[in-house]
């Protein structure tokens, strides 16, 4: 059987439905106000639990203490890799930790 594929394709028009799902809009939030100066401040160091995060945050801590000797640091390691801490059993601990620091450096590493 001889079929002209091009002709048969050209003859059809398709009206197709969208595969893209709707999603509820996420309320937007501004980022936390910044301290004018880091001297005397408590800086949180949040690790995503991967090896390089701990290494880079360690370097950040050393640099901060060298530049701002009165800085204090406080470490936090997430409960579960690649999962927002607010969705884990660590939520309450995390909220309390955030309330106790003036600013946070978060390291996302692999």
């Amino acid at each position, binding site marked *: 059987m001889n079929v002209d594929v091009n002709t048969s394709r050209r003859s059809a028009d*398709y009206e197709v439905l969208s595969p*893209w799902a709707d999603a509820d809009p996420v309320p937007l939030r501004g980022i936390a106000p910044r301290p004018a100066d880091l001297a005397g401040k408590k800086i949180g160091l949040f690790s995503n639990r991967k090896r390089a995060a701990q290494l880079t945050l360690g370097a950040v801590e050393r640099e901060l203490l060298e530049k701002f000797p009165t800085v204090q640091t406080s470490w936090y390691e997430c409960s579960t890799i690649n999962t927002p801490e607010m969705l884990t059993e660590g939520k309450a601990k995390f909220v309390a930790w955030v309330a106790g620091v003036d600013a946070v450096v978060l390291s996302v590493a692999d």
Partner: protein
Amino acid sequence: MTDGRSAASNKGMPLVRIVPDEVPCECNVKEDADAGIRASMARIIEALTKPLSAEEQAPKKKEKGTPSRIAFKGQLEEFDRFFYKRGWGDGLPLRPPTEAAVREMLAGTDLEPAHVVGEIVPRNGKATVEKIAINAVMAGALPTHMPILIACVEALADPRAHLGAYGTSTGSWMPFWIINGPVRDDARVNSGSGAMSPGDIANAAIGRTMGLIVKNVGGTRKAIEDMGVYGNPGKYSCVAGENEEMSPWEPLHVEQGFAGDESAVTLFFPNCYSQIWQYGSDDKGILATLIYNLPPGRSGLTCLLMTPTQAKTLAQKGWTKPMIRKYVYEYGRVPAYRHPSFHDGGGWTGRSPETVPPNAMDSAAIVPSPDHIRVLVLGGPGAFMGLACGGGLPGGQFVTKKVNLPSGWTKLVAKYKGLVPAYEKY
């Protein structure tokens, strides 16, 4: 950096301050980390102290366009290219999801098209029955696959499956879908020879549909949210049935708490699937193949794939699935220096410190517990065994969901029963 921006945006903080990489994200060399951070420190301090702009204080909403239900009108090639350019495809040709084709697909469920089966991360897109059906049509699925696909979406949306982690991870994890119960035959899911190869509509299209749903409902984009280093061909489709009739043991879904006459889908995320020539056809050879070929670098949920013949051999010697799980956990070991936990102190492997061996030659279990292991009977005759090895996130589980069949199921199955390949004779 794109994944960080996307993750923050999805949580409602699009303008979080990100200092670009000066250190490779996988770096474990202290000198390199120190140098990279030293080079970045001025920008880190600036990010910590620079006063907020008006937009950083109150980010403006992007105009939210309600997705149009009709996405495109035109000819076949134009449709395919339009969808591809929108990022809605997977690189292979798509079948047009016309109103009629989607209506036919919806014959596979009694649920309303607007019913939300689950929300899929990272975008929290609503997986309505209609969106599932649209993606199923695009993937070439049949209406008899719809009940399975709905259960697959339920599994994907279950937090215990950790899609948010595995779907975005550098580890390129692939969803492995295992089908049990009567629906396996009804939908013609292959559990025999070459079950995991191309060639069966169900095995191909169910996995492909779920891959499209991850993209089009969950919003996962390659190299933006999906940061898989190498990627994984299993993301096209990794679907198999368990060969329950030929297995001497209770099926996987029964182990997972369902009745034998129920149908179910089980999901977990391996990132490697290896096949190993068995060390011997007796019970000792079969078990040795498994325990000596577990990859110590994986150390998570693990599925042992064995043929009906291998399973019968073990069963004849008194082995049960729980016994095999315990044995593989107990004797699937390496010297500690070959295990990642010895090198990173338990860090990303998720093991608690008391399980980390202190000495290089101490014996270290590869899989964290017998409960991290499942046994799956499938495949045809031959001397190979399979290992599908996944990640070990805390709380991660094999997630099983019941497949609910619609009214008129028998008639629907009969309609598609004859759709099987009749190979050329030569």
